């Protein structure tokens, strides 16, 4: 008789992490294949505009990547996992969403008529498909690297990076679709026009804000599993539903772009401020405990949570001691982060 129970015993923790990583790589490869299959012909027929559409996203990606990582207090999330989040959004989530949306939009058109679908199918399909597929990337990071996302603030940052990757890919596809919608009469202008709207006008309140909030929800689940008092299923569900609602409003017809963008950006700012305040308060408590236990001096504790002050401390130290101090700072910080997240 085959039993399911011994399976987990036979697979070691390391093997299960490698399985998660392999699945993530496979999902990213699948998403890339779907996107290539869908848009390869654009590269053949419109090589210069297609490359322009991709090149225009590079500054957005670099700037967004740097700013989002910088938003995490004390120190940025691990570079490799930040990049992994971006890649998941740009490939696995974007590719799968292309197929999922096509299916669901087709169902809306068949069930509710083409006029209704023209107005509402995107806003009724994308929040469900895209938010879930994007947040799966945050969950995969939790499974592959449990130390990277310890709470809602980590989830918010990594989620934002997943959304940023998705947003960049979507911008490229919109630019390419713009060529078709304008009858290919001026492909470069079609790409530039799409870029102006999607980066110049709506970028501030687009996918990165929504997935950041959904990602914070994953962080709440992680915090709950770690036994932290602020963790919970309810805030996690609330975050995912909020992200979906933001997406619905963002895609809804007859709402001014400035309102949609403003709402999404404001929602992100409110959640970010709430989470950073709570995080800072817990970090200060954790430091006070460490000082009381004598594991860290009051002087070291004073500079630990600030990037600038940690750097200043390192600059004041002799070259021989710098590495040692940096290691000590990292070790104390890791402990504080565990408690604060």
């Amino acid at each position, binding site marked *: 008789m085959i039993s399911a129970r011994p399976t987990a015993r036979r697979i070691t*923790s390391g093997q299960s992490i490698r399985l998660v990583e392999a699945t993530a790589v496979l999902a990213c490869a699948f998403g890339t294949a779907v996107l290539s299959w869908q848009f390869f012909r654009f590269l053949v027929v419109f090589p210069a505009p297609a490359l322009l559409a991709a090149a225009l996203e590079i500054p957005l990606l670099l700037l967004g990547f740097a700013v989002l990582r910088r938003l995490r207090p004390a120190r940025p999330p691990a570079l490799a996992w930040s990049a992994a989040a971006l890649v998941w959004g740009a490939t696995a989530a974007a590719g799968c969403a292309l197929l999922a949306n096509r299916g669901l939009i087709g169902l809306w058109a068949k069930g509710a008529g083409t006029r209704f679908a023209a107005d509402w199918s995107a806003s009724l399909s994308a929040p469900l498909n895209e938010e879930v597929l994007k947040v799966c990337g945050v969950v995969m990071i939790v499974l592959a690297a449990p130390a990277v996302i310890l709470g809602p603030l980590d989830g918010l940052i990594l989620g934002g990076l997943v959304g940023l990757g998705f947003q960049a890919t979507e911008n490229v596809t919109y630019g390419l679709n713009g060529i078709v919608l304008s009858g290919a009469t001026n492909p470069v202008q079609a790409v530039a026009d799409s870029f102006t709207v999607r980066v110049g006008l709506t970028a501030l309140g687009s996918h990165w804000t929504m997935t950041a909030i959904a990602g914070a929800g994953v962080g709440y689940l992680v915090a709950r599993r770690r036994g932290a008092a602020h963790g919970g299923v309810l805030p996690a569900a609330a975050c995912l539903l909020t992200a979906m609602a933001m997406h619905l409003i963002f895609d809804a017809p007859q709402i001014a772009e400035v309102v949609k963008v403003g709402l999404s950006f404001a929602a992100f700012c409110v959640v970010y401020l709430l989470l950073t305040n709570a995080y800072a308060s817990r970090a200060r408590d954790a430091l006070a405990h460490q000082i009381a236990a004598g594991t860290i001096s009051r002087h070291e504790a004073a500079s630990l949570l600030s990037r600038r002050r940690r750097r200043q401390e390192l600059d004041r130290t002799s070259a021989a001691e710098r590495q040692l101090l940096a290691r000590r700072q990292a070790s104390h910080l890791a402990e504080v982060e565990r408690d604060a997240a």
Partner: protein
Amino acid sequence: MAADARGRGLAVSATRFRLRWLASVVAVMALLTAGWPLLNSAVANRQPLPGGAKLTIGSGASGSAMVTVGPGWSVQPAQSNGTQEYRLRKAAVVVDIRHVSLVDRYQVPGLWGGMRQVLAVIDPGARLSKPVSFTAPYELPALTGWISSRPLVGTVTIVPGPARDFAIGMVVLAPRGTSRALLAAAHRIVISLMFSAASK
């Protein structure tokens, strides 16, 4: 010993947790990515239109046009979108009606070349003839020509709107040997094109 056992227990629990969540993520992704398309393909992609039905393509009075459809035609909803495209079908004849947004009137001469390139993306096997100019209703200058997309043949017609800020492209495709009556029915849709702005 007890600590070792507890450590092993925690590791097993973490591994189980990881595998359970991995399975959930894969299941959810598969459900969305394959589930919706499968469900969509299971629902009939054909909605019959009443004879004389008028279809508006585009948005707003100044940016839209209308065609009148004869009896026996159906719309394929999955490929149709009231603001950008309609795909109509009657037996083996397919009529694609596309709304093309233009930035200014100087883009009008590029419409035929643009259509050739768009077809190279969406239907790489399609071949388009040189265009012939004709005057559409309301004295609007238009272009038409032949298209061949094995095993189908047909016509392409492009009519710029009165203000030249958009155009309507219509592609009729049918297998060789399709009855003249069916082709004439498709042609009647093409020549029924009316611009909301011009008709005022």
